[in-house]
């Protein structure tokens, strides 16, 4: 709790024109260097919260405050990487061109080629640089989106269920690759997942949200030391944490279904 | 003789002359004057800008893009006065409007008034001019009118119809293509007293460069005499170059009809020369247009023309004496 806040949602409410209240009084502070996972029932407002942090949507009530509140505290473009819940690829551009996009938009096209290659290699898509999105499987598309988010080497990463469409082996590998990046480069990550195991394995903190309208139901620190590995994953501590988090999720959902 | 050719003087006045249709025999005199060097001899470097089916070159005269314009009939000169357009008629090359109504033979049409029973193909311009006169004078009605689109096909397809045309042109095309000999009624012979193929110019040219206007009028008149009575081949060659659709046959036909129908050289022109105009004709035509409701009686029609440049028997000795 000692590291400074990167961004904070303060009593944020989000209501859509059709009347749906997605968030109601959400308080959430993201601290520098933490790996924060959001867990919550389908439709509780996780993606909405991420969009608010990304500045793609404005709160109906409350505020999104960057750093110490100074205007300069907002991240420069390219310092923020986002993986949307849907792959969101440009259908007219090859895989490589899709991954290259953030570099071009932030005028770093000169360093693009090696970075694009590295990012594609990291997600296991070396051979598909010239393929078009429609020629990819669902999981492959998502991996392209992940490579695109990583390619600018952003300080803050917002990831909305990035690995949901991946097999467990690939998922574990990417989990580990992400943890490696986070640790080595000191990134801050906000991670939405539905997998309690994944959340526990990756996070320094897990926030469990209530069903719509979303609020914080539980805020659980995962104090296990890094680097984490298979040993942690098979430890009793891990199992206990998973039970705690799973319990918190079940409590949050109560008897309601969705 | 104001327009005596200034021997060898190199500086020619550039003059733009617009017609209201593509090059054809009905413009023969002008092309003749251009082709055989008459304009040049009168110190003029003339460019002829032909009109076309949808083009309205007339507006280009008052704005100065043209110096002279060949307008179809006298009515247009009245309009200019009514609309305060500073143009004025300086010569009338056709004593008779060549406008005709053409009917099928063997459809029971004997007199002009019988046309009232037919469908009539009339152009928009016709509706705005002679047809109003036909209504006032002969009791034709709007209900019988069908649109004329510069094309004889609808007429040929409908035996119970008549169409407008020029005496010099449409009867020939119809005869040639359909092998019928149509009935042809020249409106001028039915009392339609408009001049035709008038030369209009801007008022400021009349006031400030009367010599130039005179030279253009005189050279055009000489062109017409030559075209009618001399060797028209230079004019015809130029017409064909500007309009490759034109055939020798049609050119010959049109020339013949202009002569036999007295389109150019008849009436006042016989005594005063081609281009002749008189106050009496103008007054009579104005009265008939007022009666037809086409022109407001308040229009000062005398401002629409000037007799300053015509009735001087220019070139009249070019007419064969017999």
């Amino acid at each position, binding site marked *: 709790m000692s590291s400074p806040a990167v961004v904070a949602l303060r009593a944020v409410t989000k209501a859509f024109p059709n009347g749906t209240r997605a968030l109601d009084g959400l308080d959430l502070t993201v601290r520098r260097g933490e790996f924060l996972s959001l867990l919550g029932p389908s439709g509780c407002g996780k993606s909405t919260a991420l969009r608010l942090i990304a500045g*793609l949507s404005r709160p109906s009530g409350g505020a999104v405050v960057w750093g110490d509140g100074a205007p300069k505290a*907002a991240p420069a473009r390219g310092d923020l990487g986002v993986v949307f819940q849907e792959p969101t690829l440009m259908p007219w551009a090859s895989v490589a061109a899709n991954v290259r996009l953030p570099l071009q938009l932030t005028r770093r096209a000169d360093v693009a080629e090696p970075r694009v290659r590295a990012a594609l290699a990291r997600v296991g898509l070396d051979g598909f640089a010239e393929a078009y999105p429609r020629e990819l499987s669902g999981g492959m598309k998502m991996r392209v989106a992940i490579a695109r988010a990583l390619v600018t080497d952003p300080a803050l990463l917002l990831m909305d269920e990035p690995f949901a469409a991946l097999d467990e082996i690939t998922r574990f590998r990417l989990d580990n690759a992400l943890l490696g990046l986070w640790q080595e480069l000191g990134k801050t990550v906000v991670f939405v997942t539905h997998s309690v195991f994944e959340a526990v394995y990756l996070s320094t903190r897990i926030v469990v949200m209530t069903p719509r309208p979303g609020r914080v139901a539980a805020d659980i620190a995962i104090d296990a030391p890094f680097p984490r590995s298979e040993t942690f994953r098979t430890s009793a501590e891990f199992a206990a944490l998973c039970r705690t988090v799973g319990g918190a999720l079940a409590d949050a959902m109560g008897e309601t279904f969705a | 003789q104001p327009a005596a050719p200034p021997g060898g003087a190199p500086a020619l006045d550039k003059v733009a002359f617009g017609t209201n249709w593509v090059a054809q025999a009905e413009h023969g005199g002008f092309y003749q004057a251009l082709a055989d060097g008459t304009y040049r001899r009168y110190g003029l470097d003339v460019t002829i800008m032909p009109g076309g089916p949808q083009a309205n070159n007339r507006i280009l005269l*008052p704005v100065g893009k043209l110096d002279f314009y060949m307008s179809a009939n006298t009515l247009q000169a009245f309009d200019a006065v009514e609309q*305060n357009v500073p143009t004025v008629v300086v010569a009338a090359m056709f004593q008779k409007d060549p406008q005709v109504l053409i009917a099928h033979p063997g459809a029971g049409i004997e007199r002009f008034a019988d046309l009232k029973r037919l469908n009539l193909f*009339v152009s928009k311009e016709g509706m*705005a001019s002679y047809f109003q006169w036909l209504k006032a004078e002969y009791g034709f009605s709007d209900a019988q009118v069908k649109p004329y689109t510069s094309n004889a*096909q609808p007429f040929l397809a409908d035996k119970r119809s008549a169409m407008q045309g020029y005496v010099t042109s449409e009867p020939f095309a119809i005869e040639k293509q359909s092998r019928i000999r149509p009935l042809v009624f020249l409106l001028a012979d039915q009392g339609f007293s408009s001049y035709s193929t008038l030369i209009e110019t801007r008022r400021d040219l009349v006031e400030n460069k009367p010599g130039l206007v005179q030279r253009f009028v005189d050279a055009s008149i000489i062109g017409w005499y030559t075209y009618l009575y001399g060797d028209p081949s230079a004019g015809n060659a130029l017409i064909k170059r500007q309009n490759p659709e034109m055939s020798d046959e049609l050119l010959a036909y049109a020339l013949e009809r202009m002569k036999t129908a007295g389109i150019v050289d008849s009436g006042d022109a016989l005594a005063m020369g081609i281009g002749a105009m008189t106050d009496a004709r103008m007054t009579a035509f104005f009265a008939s247009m007022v009666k037809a409701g086409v022109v407001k009686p308040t229009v000062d029609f005398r401002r629409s023309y000037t007799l300053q440049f015509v009735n001087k028997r220019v070139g009249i000795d070019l007419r064969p004496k017999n």
Partner: protein
Amino acid sequence: MPPVGAPAEADEARPWRARLVRFGLPLLALALGCVAWELVVWVYAVPAYQLPSPLAVATTLVEDRALLFGSLLVTLETTAYGFALAVLGGAGLAILFSQSRLLETMLYPYAVILQVTPVVAVAPLLLIWLPQPVAVLACAWIVAFFPMLANTTLGLHSVDHNLSDLFALYGASRLQRLVRLQLPAALPMMLAGARIAGGLSLVGAVVAEIAAGSAGAGSGLAYRIAESSYRLNVPRMFAALILLSVAGMAVFGLLSLASWLILRRWHESALSRGP
């Protein structure tokens, strides 16, 4: 504070001010245009036969209102029929073509021929073979149908392939696929086609009147324009042209509104904009 220029959000309610701007601005722009025009005429002392002043045109519009509005009605009637035929005919042909590759391959060239054939050339032929009011409508139709055909064709072929698979899966009949999948997917493009066709129908009505139109008592604006031009009555010609423009803007405005009402619940183009 958003880190980057926040995009226009579809989920933000539009304040009434935006609407005022949306409707007021074009009028303001047109008013400005008129002022500029009046100034030009004044400053350069342009004579009326060259460019009449807006005031002169307005005066003519009022003075000749009976004549001009009568003509406007005639033209609008032709426009309405021509538009209906263009939309139905263009969309109908596109639908027909989408049902049979054979028909499309064989008939599309004829549609292109119709599009590129100048109306003034075919009008006499149509007048021979068809009764005159029908010929006028045929001319108007020829001018306006093609954008509808082209846009509907593209729209019908731009169906999301996953949805297309879904329909194949449930053995959807051609009609079901057309009605429930292709037409809704094509709707935004069809409406764009209709917006193009709306203006073209007006042009078509005018061209048709000129080429094959009624002369005589019940004449439309085209006749007024041609006659005024021939008679050098330039203010009246402008008055007629302005009526035509206003009619065109009204048609376009109505079609845009209809488009927005139809698409606002789901299509990006309508979501990101207002009525």
